C-alpha cells in the first residue's frame, strides 16, 4: 500500500474572526528545538496590525456592553473547547519547545485552569475595584471600573500557550478587545488557540492574534494612536522597552510589564475608573 500523503496545516493570522495570510505575503520558518523544520508561519506586517486594530475597535463597544455574567460564560466556554483540543496542543508544544509530552500536558492543563481563573473575575471586578464614596451632600457617589478600549499585548517567548493565556485573558475579561503578538519562536499553538476562539462564542474582533517579529511590530503597537494600552511582558531587551515607551508617549498609552502571573492587577491595569454622582431621592 502507498504511504499516505500528509495534509499539513497552513498557519495564518487571526484578525476579525477570519484567518487571513499576512497582507505582505511574508512567512518565516518555525523550527523545533532540534533545529528541524516544523511549519511556516505568517510574518505579520504593520498593515496587518492596522487591520487588527480596526477589527478590535469595531468589536469593542459590543463586547464591553455585554453583561459581565455573559462575558464570563463565553470565556468559560472557551475553556471547554480548549479541554477538548488539549491533545493537539500537547503535541504542538512538545514538538516546538522540545519538552516531553508529560511536561507539555502539564502546561496545557495549567493554561486551561488559568483561563478559567480569569473568566471567573468577570462579574467580580466591579465589586473588587468599584466603591461607594462618602460625600457631604444629598448625593450618591459611585466609582466603577470600566474597560479601557483596545489593548495590545506582546506575549512571552517561553511557555507559548500559557504566555498567550496570560496575555489575552486579563485584557478581554473586563470588556477590552485585544491584539496579541504571539511568541515568535513558538507561534503554532497560538494559531491553534485562534481556532478555538473562532469556534467558541467570542464575537469576531474581540481577540486578534498576529505572529511575527516583535522587534519589527512592537514599536508600531506603541505608536498606534488607537491602541489604548499595551502589555509588554514579553519584551525583555531594555533597548526595545525604551523604544516602546518613547513611541507610546504620544497618546499617553498605558504600558505595563508584569512579572506576576495569575494576578487580578493584570486585569485592573487595563481598566479605568468612572465616577458617577447621583442625587438621593430621585
Amino acid at each position, binding site marked *: 500500500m502507498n504511504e499516505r500523503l500528509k495534509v499539513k496545516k497552513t498557519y495564518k493570522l487571526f484578525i476579525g474572526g477570519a484567518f487571513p495570510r499576512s497582507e505582505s505575503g511574508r512567512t518565516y520558518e518555525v523550527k523545533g528545538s532540534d533545529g528541524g523544520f516544523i511549519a511556516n508561519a505568517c510574518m505579520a506586517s504593520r498593515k496587518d496590525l492596522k487591520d487588527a*486594530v480596526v477589527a478590535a475597535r469595531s468589536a469593542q463597544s459590543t463586547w464591553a456592553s455585554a453583561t459581565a455574567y455573559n462575558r464570563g460564560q463565553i470565556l468559560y466556554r472557551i475553556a471547554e473547547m480548549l479541554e477538548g483540543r488539549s491533545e493537539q496542543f500537547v503535541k504542538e508544544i512538545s514538538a516546538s519547545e522540545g519538552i516531553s509530552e508529560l511536561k507539555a500536558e502539564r502546561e496545557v492543563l495549567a493554561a486551561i485552569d488559568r483561563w478559567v481563573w480569569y473568566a471567573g473575575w468577570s462579574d467580580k471586578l466591579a465589586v473588587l475595584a468599584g466603591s461607594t464614596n462618602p460625600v457631604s451632600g444629598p448625593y450618591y457617589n459611585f466609582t466603577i471600573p470600566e474597560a479601557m478600549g483596545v489593548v495590545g499585548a506582546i506575549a512571552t517567548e517561553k511557555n507559548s500557550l500559557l504566555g498567550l493565556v496570560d496575555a489575552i485573558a486579563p485584557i478581554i475579561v473586563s470588556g477590552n478587545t485585544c491584539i496579541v503578538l504571539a511568541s515568535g519562536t513558538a507561534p503554532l499553538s497560538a494559531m491553534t488557540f485562534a481556532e478555538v476562539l473562532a469556534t467558541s462564542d467570542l464575537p469576531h474582533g474581540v481577540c486578534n492574534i498576529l505572529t511575527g517579529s516583535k522587534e519589527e511590530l512592537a514599536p*508600531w503597537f506603541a*505608536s*498606534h*494612536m*488607537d491602541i489604548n494600552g499595551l502589555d509588554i511582558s514579553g519584551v525583555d531587551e531594555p533597548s526595545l522597552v525604551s523604544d516602546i515607551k518613547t*513611541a507610546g508617549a*504620544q*497618546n499617553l498609552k498605558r504600558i505595563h510589564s508584569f512579572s506576576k502571573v495569575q494576578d487580578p492587577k493584570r486585569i485592573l491595569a487595563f481598566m479605568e475608573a468612572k465616577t458617577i454622582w447621583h442625587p438621593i431621592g430621585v
Partner: protein
Amino acid sequence: MKYYGLVDGTEASLKNFLKSLPGVDQVGAEARAAMLGTRSIKTSSKKKAIDLAISMVDLTTLEGADTAGKVTALASKAVRPDPTDPTVPSVGAICVYNDMVSIARKHLDLVGGSHVPVAAVCTAFPSGRATMPVKIQDTIDAMDAGAGEIDMVIDRGAFLSGHLMDVFEEIVKIREVCGEKVHLKVILETGELVTYDNVRKASFLAMLAGADFIKTSTGKVAPAATPPVVLVMLEAVRDFYELTNKRIGVKPAGGIRNTKDAIKQLVLVNETAGPEWLTPSLFRIGASALLNDLLMQRMKIRDGYYASPTYVTID
C-alpha cells in the same frame, strides 16, 4: 447642437442610437476592474492621491434623521476637514436633502466656504416615484435655496420596462429647469439596472439628455458603486468624449468607505477615462465615512504613526 447631433429627440432615433452601442463584456470588465484594484501605490503618490480624493468628496448626509445641527457641522467639516491642518483641501461639495440646502449654504458662507457648492438630491430621491410637476418643483425649490448642483434620480421602472423616452424627456426637462449655471448629476441607481449593458445604455441616455455628471447610486440600494460598474461608466464618458468632444463627469457613490477603495477608484479613472478626469470638476466620490479614513491616512503619512478615529469628528 441639440442632443450633440447624435439623436434628434424622437424615440426611434434614441432607441437606434442606444441599440448601436456595443455590449459590455461582463467577464472582461470584472477582470479588468479587479486587476486595476491590485495596483500598488507608493507613499509619495499616495499622499497626492489622498489630497485629490479629499477634494473630490461630496460629503453626504441623506438620513431621515438629519437635523440643522448635523448639516451645519458637516458644512464646517467640508470647508476645513482637519481643523488642525490648514493644508488639507476643502471637499468637492456637500450633498444634502432639499430642505437642508439653505441651512448648508448659509453656514458654508458663514465659515468661509463660499467656494464649496451645495448639491441637493432632487426629483423624489431616492425612488424617483413622483409626478413630473412635483419633480420640477423639487428642483426649483433646491435651486432657490442656493443649490449649485442638482443630483436627480431617473425613473428606473420606466427604464427597465423600455420606456426610454420617458426617462430621456424627464432628464431634458430637469436640465432646462437647471439652466446652464447649475450642475446636473444624473443618478442611474446601477444596483437596480441589473446588467452592465443597461448601465452603459443609461449612461449614454443621461449624457445625451444633458447631464453634466453621471452618478452610480443613491446610496440606498446595494450593490452601489462597485468597481466594474464605475469602469463601464468611465468607458462611456470616454467614448462620449470621442463622439462629441465634451467631457462628462462621473460620480460613484455608496460603498466607498476607506482610502484603499477611494484610491482604487482614482486608478480606474486614470486608466479608463484618462488623467484629464482626475479633477473635482469631472470626478466626485459620494461618501460620508470615507472622509475620516482619508484624514486618518493623511495623518499617518504626515506623522509616521497610525491615527485614531478619536482625533477626527464623529458624523
